[in-house]
């Protein structure tokens, strides 16, 4: 059998394909995005980007009820958005297997919070598996489909950044074609109105009992007895860290099934041990399970609730052994936070908003970086879509004078995801907000996925394109202006006019992401001798423009020739050079 080096996410995709998956519908979100992207290589699978996670999950539920194996993939906060269908799909159960892959992000490499998705498995009464490397990603995905059909339950697959984005070896196998299951109308099972749901809840509790039994006997939960008096109960990537740190000096109980957790297996494991540690990133999920059973374990007293774990910290906590010696750096090194790319279309927008001193209700995407110095224009970022609805709330409590200095900024993908409902609220409830849709023709932040506004499917096929302008008019916004954020003079004028209105308005800031293949800026921006060193261009926060020996310079290697600085310089001192 051929072995291949795959990131965990690609291994999940391979596992789903081998398991005969027919449909995958997802919304992107780091660190889960590459699962769905990798599905594109399998021509025998229907794959799509949905407008948001709730829709994606419902499409997958429909596919599963329709009798095919189906999957949806999201990041941890994506599970919040799809929670509504997930909780009730637990009651209906499935027909074809349904797998929900959710990737947590301990350490928040690319996220707005650090929530632990295992709580959902318990809250929604589901089954959850947790792989620790790419081979397990593939194997557990396949098993997840089987379990889903065997127990009539949607199965969650819990990933984390280090599992999703680490490559390790995977044995590649062929696809098992799974017959489409017959679709039979079954109102009692699939129509969740009270009378039926009451009956289904009984089924759910019975199913959970069976899953708990399964957890006792399945080989997902494995004991590694090294003859030690110290035991470590762990799961997922934490197992790998523990194994590297502690080797064969402790006994392990690795829980491949994150929910339901076994009881007897844990009791048997701890028997005769002097000390038992629970090593798990984020919340004390396994730890509390043990403590409720009355088992004395050491968890968060020794380990943190915050961020990622490392082998070093585990070694220190368990054996009080120090990490390797290392050479220190003696001076303060400047940090290197992420910044908008040279040529980013969002830079023009934030330059103007900052100049006008507006309050900016922000959202999630590349444009969140508008909160970073020197632009520092964004005031708030909560979750996808909140820029629009939160601005309505702000305006309602602070009044129209405040609202005239307030705008929302939201990307095209985020607007479709959940901004549009907020905008409808503004129109319906007589708000007068100004919403700027940052239409860069792509879902940038998560690595350039198409979306309903780009006119292309995930497979790159041409499709209908949502017309943002018409959409805004259709829901009752009467003032919609399309403007180029790089034409800073005009953009400033448009923003000033629109915020003044006593009615809702939308500005569509249209210019494509600089990293798109279709965007070809030619030449480079150079500074000529008209420069008066006024540093106006420095306010753009462009990574190519800096001050060297007290003079403004443009780094040719970093400049992409977008020309925004040419438009900003008041003295005509920046020119485009071929």
């Amino acid at each position, binding site marked *: 059998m051929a*072995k291949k*080096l795959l*990131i965990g996410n690609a291994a999940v995709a391979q596992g789903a394909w081998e398991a005969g998956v027919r449909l995958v519908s997802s919304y992107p979100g*780091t*660190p889960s*995005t*590459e699962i769905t992207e990798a599905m594109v290589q399998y021509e025998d699978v229907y794959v799509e980007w949905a407008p948001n996670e709730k829709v994606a999950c419902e499409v997958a539920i429909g596919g599963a009820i329709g009798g095919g194996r189906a999957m949806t993939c999201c990041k941890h906060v994506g599970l919040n958005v799809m929670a509504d269908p997930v909780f009730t799909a637990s009651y209906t159960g499935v027909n074809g297997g349904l797998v929900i892959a959710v990737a947590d992000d301990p350490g928040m*490499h*690319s996220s707005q919070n650090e929530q632990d998705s295992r709580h959902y498995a318990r809250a929604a009464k589901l089954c959850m598996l947790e792989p620790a*490397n790419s081979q397990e990603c593939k194997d557990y995905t396949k098993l997840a489909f089987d379990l889903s059909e065997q127990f009539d339950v949607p199965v969650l697959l819990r990933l984390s950044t*280090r599992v999703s*984005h*680490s*490559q*390790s*070896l995977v044995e590649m196998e062929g696809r098992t074609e799974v017959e489409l299951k017959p679709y039979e109308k079954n109102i009692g099972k699939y129509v969740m109105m009270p009378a039926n749901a009451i009956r289904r809840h009984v089924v759910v509790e019975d199913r959970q009992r069976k899953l708990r039994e399964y957890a006792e006997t399945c080989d997902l939960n494995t004991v590694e007895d090294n003859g030690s008096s110290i035991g470590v109960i762990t799961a997922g*990537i934490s197992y*790998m*860290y523990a*194994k*590297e*740190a502690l080797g064969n000096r402790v006994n392990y109980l690795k829980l491949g099934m994150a929910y339901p957790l076994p009881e007897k297996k844990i009791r048997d494991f701890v028997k005769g041990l002097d000390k038992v540690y629970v090593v798990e990133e984020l919340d004390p999920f396994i730890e509390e399970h043990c403590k409720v059973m009355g088992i004395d374990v050491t968890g968060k007293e020794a380990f943190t609730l915050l961020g990622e774990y*490392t*082998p*070093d910290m585990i070694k220190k906590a368990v054996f009080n052994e120090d*990490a*390797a*010696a*290392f*050479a*220190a*750096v003696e*001076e*303060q*090194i*400047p*940090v*290197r*936070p*992420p*910044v*908008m*790319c040279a040529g980013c279309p969002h830079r023009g927008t934030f330059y103007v908003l900052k100049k006008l001193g507006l309050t900016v209700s922000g959202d999630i995407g*590349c444009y969140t*970086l508008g909160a*970073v*110095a*020197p632009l520092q224009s964004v005031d708030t970022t909560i979750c996808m879509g909140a820029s629009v609805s939160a601005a309505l709330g702000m305006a309602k409590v602070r009044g129209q004078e405040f609202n005239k200095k307030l705008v929302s900024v939201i990307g095209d993908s985020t607007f479709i995801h959940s901004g549009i409902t907020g905008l409808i609220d503004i129109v319906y409830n007589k708000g007068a907000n100004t919403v700027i849709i940052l239409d860069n023709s792509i879902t940038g*932040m*998560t*690595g350039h996925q198409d979306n309903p506004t780009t006119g292309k499917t995930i497979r790159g096929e041409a499709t209908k394109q949502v017309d943002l302008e018409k959409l805004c008019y259709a829901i009752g916004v009467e003032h919609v202006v399309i403007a180029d954020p790089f034409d800073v003079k005009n953009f400033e004028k448009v923003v000033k006019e629109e915020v003044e209105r006593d009615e809702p308005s939308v500005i569509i800031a249209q210019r494509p992401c600089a990293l798109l293949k279709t965007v070809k800026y030619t030449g480079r921006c150079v500074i000529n001798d008209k420069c008066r060193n006024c540093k106006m261009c*420095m306010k753009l*926060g462009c*990574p190519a*423009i*800096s*001050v060297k020996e007290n003079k403004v310079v443009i*780094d040719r*290697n*970093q400049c992409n020739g977008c020309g925004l600085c040419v438009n900003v310089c008041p003295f005509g001192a920046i020119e485009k050079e071929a």
Partner: protein
Amino acid sequence: MSTKNIMIVGVGGQGTLLASRILGNAVISQGYDVKVSEVHGMSQRGGSVVTYVKYGEQVYSPIIGKGEADIILAFETLEAYRALPFLKEGGKLIMNIQQMDPMPVITGAAQYPADVVEKLSAKASVTALDALSLAKEAGNPKAVNVVLIGLMARNTDIPYDVWVDTLKATVPPKFLDVNLKAFDLGYNRG
């Protein structure tokens, strides 16, 4: 053999991801177990990026701790400096002398440290080269990462031919010539 730890650091957009993939594939062709950690998402937008490649008989954790890297391959000078604490005693630091100002330096809130190569050389075994010029010499400034892989390749126990085969398998055919040339330019400085 004990696990070998290689850490690749740079600035988002410099091609560190491709470098770690090429290294990972070269290593498996030698029959080792391997783990390669990648970075996707937010930090790719011009932030510091760190990837790890670990290989040996059996590799558990995909990450490398302080004082554990046998080799650090740095695409940018400040990032080389930042990574120093991860270098094992006796490890090698291979670096590009290119300097890219991070935003705090651009805004004047911080200063780019001076004489980094000298400071690093006082503490570790350092090989520094101008990979950008060599990439231009090879025919494409974007081949910086492959020049650096060439330099690093010389410092591993993996034979030259394996690297060439891996490049052939990972790089699109139309860029192969440039990349092979870039690889050689780096390899021959090693």
